Each structure stands twice: as structure tokens, then as C-alpha cells.
């Protein structure tokens, strides 16, 4: 047998799956042919590579995940009990919010509970506003709003994503992550409604130069004409002169809608 024929048999030979006759033939060839022999030897020598052990952290991360899964299920059936347990799923959600479709629900529940606690705190007459616990709760609520907004923006249904956008508007100082998620929604969401809503939400932060820069670059020929017009209006509203070069470029694009082109002309006029 020549090398080509051996090459076809070799993989089966290496996994010990040839009948003795054929295996014998292969072996005869391997002992006489240095190239094929070396290939077979390399396969065997791969066993020299040690099996490595992961760090113990992997084990503990897994345990934490499993526990929070089990607690999460348990929590649904008895929501009001043991509020201190709720901190685990929160930590977990921080790392994995993208992958968690039920995160929105869990977050909403945790949030409700905190709202309730804050309400109770506020009603105590002699408590002063400086109470550090209230501050801590406030920060927690803010970060929860953010998480809820982020996880809702990942939902399958457009109405839930819309809700996610509206959650984001309740944040006084949005985190870069939320802004990123909103921009991602603005560019890529399947639904025009959700994209328009995210544009509306972003308009609140158009005072920030980096937000404006992103808005300018979001003006693309592939966008729906409605979003394009919304973007142009917003850029005119905030009077962003830096947008003019991009608007001019955009105006030259042969593929844009004629009505949009008229609007671009108007926008450039306004900005100049």
C-alpha cells in the first residue's frame, strides 16, 4: 500500500478501529515509511501533553451559580421571606445579565422589595436624611434600575425592549454600559419603534459630547428613514456643528430616500 492509501486508513488505525488484517498492513507500512511513521508517532506522543487542572476558583464559581439558580427558583415561591438571600442572585445577574431572560422578572421583584423597604424607612418620623442606610439603599435602587434596563433591552419581545428603554430614562446618571446598550438598540434593533424610543431616550444625554459623536455616526444609509429624520432633528436641536461633515457625506449617498435628502438639506441650512 502507498502513503495515500495508508493516510485514509490511518485515522481509524489510530483510534484502534481497523480489523487485525488491515491494522497489520498499516503497521508494516509505518515501520518502513518515515513520514507516515512519524505522523503516527506524533499522535501517540500527544499523550505527553499533560492533563491540566483548572484553578479552584472554577469550582467555587460553579457552586455559586448553582446555588443562585436554586435560590432563584426558591425565591419565586416565597418572595417575602429572607430578604438577605436576594443579594446572591443580584451578584450573579451582574455577571450574566445578557444571558438571563428571566433576569428582568427577578430584578423587578428585588426592586419592588427594596422600594417597599425604602418606603418604610421614609415613614419613620425622626430618621434624618443623612441616614447612611438610606443612602446605601438609594445607590442600590439606582444600580438596580440600571440592571433592569439592561436586561430588558435584551428581551425577545419588542414591547419589553421598549420598556427597557423607558427604564433607562429613569436613571439620573446613566452608566456607559446603559448608553452602549441604548446605542446598540438604536443601530440594530429589529423594531423601528424601539429604535425611535431609544433615540428619544438618548436625546436626554445629547449634552455629552461623546453621546453626540455616537449619534452622528449612527446616521447611516441602512437605517429606516424615520430614524434618520429623528436623528437629523436631534442634531439640529442640540445645534451640533460637528455633525455637518457627516450630514454632507450622508446627503451624497445615492441610496437614501428623497424626503430624507430634503431633510438633510434643511438640517445643514439650520446648522450653518
Amino acid at each position, binding site marked *: 500500500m502507498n502513503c495515500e492509501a495508508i*493516510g*485514509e486508513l*490511518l*485515522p*481509524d488505525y*489510530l*483510534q484502534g478501529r481497523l480489523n487485525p488484517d488491515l491494522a497489520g498492513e498499516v503497521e508494516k507500512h509505518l515501520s518502513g515509511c518515515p*513520514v507516515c511513521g*512519524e*505522523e*503516527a508517532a*506524533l*499522535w501517540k*506522543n*500527544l499523550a*505527553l*501533553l*499533560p*492533563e*491540566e*487542572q*483548572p*484553578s479552584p*476558583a*472554577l*469550582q467555587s*464559581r*460553579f*457552586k455559586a*451559580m*448553582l446555588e443562585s*439558580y*436554586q435560590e432563584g*427558583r426558591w425565591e419565586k415561591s416565597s418572595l417575602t421571606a429572607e430578604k438577605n438571600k436576594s443579594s446572591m442572585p443580584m451578584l450573579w445577574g451582574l455577571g*450574566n445579565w445578557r*444571558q*438571563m431572560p428571566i433576569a428582568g422578572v427577578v430584578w423587578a421583584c428585588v426592586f419592588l422589595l427594596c422600594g417597599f423597604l425604602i418606603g418604610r424607612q421614609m415613614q419613620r418620623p425622626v430618621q434624618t436624611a443623612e441616614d447612611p442606610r438610606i443612602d446605601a439603599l438609594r445607590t442600590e435602587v439606582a444600580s438596580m434600575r440600571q440592571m433592569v434596563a439592561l436586561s430588558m433591552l435584551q428581551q425577545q419581545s419588542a414591547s419589553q425592549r421598549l420598556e427597557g428603554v423607558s427604564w433607562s430614562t429613569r436613571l439620573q446618571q446613566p452608566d456607559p454600559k446603559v448608553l452602549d446598550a441604548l446605542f446598540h438598540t438604536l443601530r440594530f434593533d429589529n423594531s423601528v419603534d424601539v429604535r425611535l424610543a431609544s433615540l428619544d431616550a438618548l436625546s436626554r444625554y445629547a449634552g455629552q459630547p461623546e453621546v453626540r459623536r455616537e449619534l452622528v455616526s449612527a446616521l447611516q444609509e441602512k437605517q429606516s428613514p424615520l430614524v434618520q429624520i429623528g436623528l437629523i432633528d436631534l442634531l439640529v436641536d442640540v445645534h451640533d456643528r460637528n455633525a455637518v461633515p457627516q450630514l454632507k457625506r450622508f446627503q451624497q449617498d445615492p441610496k437614501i430616500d428623497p424626503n430624507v435628502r430634503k431633510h438633510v438639506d434643511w438640517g445643514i441650512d439650520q446648522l450653518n
Partner: protein
Amino acid sequence: MSDEELMAQVRSGVGEMLGVLFERYHVPLFNFYRKLTGDRGVSEDLVQEVFFRILKYRHSYRMDTSFRAWMYQIARNARLDYLRKHRSEVSWEPEMSPAMAPVDTAQQSQEAVLLHAALMRISEEKREVLVLSRFQDLKYEEIAQLLGCEVNTVKTRVHRALQELRQVFHQLESGKPQGR
């Protein structure tokens, strides 16, 4: 209890059983990723991701199918998603870092070090098929199912992978520093 029975329990909501599957498979999965990516940290993250997905998609597991095949399918997808997300950071990774030797280099023979370096340098596609067939003990039929190709294609790829490994190994060997 077999993997499939354990997974059936996980599917019906007995989360603890995933712990048994974790004990059985976290080291092989870690080594699978370790040999594919060359990076311990990334490998651990990916193993965690696999078990997370097993839990998340437990209802999509079909009772009459092999758990291992299903798990490796998830493992592969997790890695592809990771590559997609980190494309710019990963592009330099395995092929261009010949110096990437395992941590306990000192205890290993020179040959193992070279072999590891050579494995890291062959093309991604060939490395994957080699790792699956040699280290994960998957049969060619299982690999074919996993990759969505013919069994013969897998065998051809294994052979080509060995050919390439041999060439790279020789290059490294002839260029190795003297005195060892």
C-alpha cells in the same frame, strides 16, 4: 447513574445533579478549551459558560440523545460566540504566540513543549478536530455530527492535521535554541 439519566434529572429541575456532571466533565472541558485557546483564564470562563448554558437550555436536551455530544455542541457554540465577541482581541492569539508554553514547563520533556507549541500553531480547524479525537475521546461519527460534516471529512481532516503538525514540529525542532 449515566450522564443521560443525570441530565434528565437536571431537566426536570433537580439542579444538584448538574454538580455530578460538573465533576465528570469540568476537567475534560477545561483541557479542551486549554488546548484550543492556549489561555487558562479564557478556558475557565468558557467552562463556566457551558454549565450555565446547560442549565439555561436544559429543556432543549432530548432524552434519547447522547449527553456528551450535546454538551460538546454547547461547548463549541460558546467558543464561537466568544470568538465573535472578542474577534479583535483574539486574532493574535494561538498561532502567533509560539512562546506560550504550559505553566509547568520545567517538569516537561523538551518534546512535550515542542509538541504543545506545534499544536498551537496548526490551523484552528485542524487543531479542533485533533483535540476532539485525541483528547476528548470522541468517535469520528460524533465529531462529524458535531461539525455538521461527513465522517470521511473528519478522517481526512485528522490526517491533514497530523501532516501539518509534523511539518510545524520539524520547523520548531530545527529552530530550537541550542544547549538543551
